[in-house]
C-alpha cells in the first residue's frame, strides 16, 4: 500500500477530493449532493491519505481529533436550527440573506445547517474508521 506512486497520488488526491467534497456540499441545494455525501467524500480523502502515509501522519495533518469535529458540526447545525427562534419564528425556519453571494448562490441558514451535517459526517466516518484500524 505504501507504494510511491500511491503516496504521490494520495497527496494530490487529498486536496482535490476535499475541494470536490465542498463542491458537492455547496451544490446540494440545486443538484444531487449535499452535506452528507460531501462529508463522506471528504472522509474518503483522509482515509486514502491514511492508507498511504499511515494514521499518525493523517492525524498530524488533521491537527484536531476527528472526535472533536462532531460537537463542532452538531453545534453548527443546532445553531442554524435555533437561529429563527431569536426572531420568534419556529425551529429551523428558513432565513436567507437578501443578496446571492457569487459562486455559492443564495446563502441561508440551510447552508449553515448542511455545513454542520458535513462536518459531523466527516467526524463520524473518520472516528469509526480510525479507531477500527487502530484496534485491528
Amino acid at each position, binding site marked *: 500500500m505504501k507504494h510511491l506512486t500511491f503516496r504521490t497520488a494520495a497527496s494530490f488526491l487529498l486536496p482535490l477530493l476535499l475541494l470536490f467534497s465542498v463542491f458537492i456540499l455547496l451544490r446540494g441545494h*440545486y*443538484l*444531487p449532493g449535499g452535506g*452528507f455525501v460531501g462529508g463522506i467524500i471528504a472522509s474518503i480523502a483522509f482515509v486514502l491519505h491514511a492508507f498511504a502515509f499511515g494514521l499518525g501522519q493523517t492525524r498530524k495533518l488533521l491537527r484536531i481529533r476527528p472526535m472533536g469535529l462532531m460537537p463542532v458540526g452538531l453545534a453548527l447545525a443546532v445553531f442554524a436550527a435555533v437561529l429563527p427562534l431569536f426572531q420568534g419564528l419556529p425551529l429551523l425556519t428558513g432565513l436567507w440573506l437578501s443578496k446571492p453571494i457569487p459562486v455559492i448562490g443564495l446563502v441561508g441558514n440551510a447552508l449553515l445547517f448542511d455545513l454542520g451535517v458535513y462536518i459531523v459526517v466527516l467526524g*463520524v466516518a473518520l472516528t*469509526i474508521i480510525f479507531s*477500527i484500524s487502530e*484496534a485491528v
Partner: protein
Amino acid sequence: MEIILAVIVGLLYASGIYLMLRRSLVKLVVGLVLLGNGVNLLIFLLGGLVRGKPPLIPDTATYLGQVYADPVPQALILTAIVISFGLQSFAIVLIKRTYVVVNTDDMDQIHSTEEDDDY
C-alpha cells in the same frame, strides 16, 4: 417492474430474517444489513416508481413538471440509510468486541442467561 421489485423486497426480507436465525454473529449482522436494504427498497417501491425524472427543478423552471419521482420517500430513505449506517457500523464493531471478549462469533456460545456475579 413493480412486481419484480416487490419480489426482490420480499427476498431481501426473507434472507435477512433467515440470516438472523443462523448461529454466526457475522451472518446475523449481514442479515440486519439486508433487512435494512429491504425496508429501504420497500419505502422506495411504495412511493411509486418513476423512470428518468429525478425530483430536480430544471434550471429554467421554478417548480417540478407534471411527472417526477416522489421526493418524499427518497428523503425518508436517505435518512433511514444514514441511520442504518450508524447502527450497522456499531453492530460490526460489536462483533469485534464480542470476539475479543467471548472469543467466538458463534451465537450459541453466548446464551448464558445466568449472571456470573463473581467478578
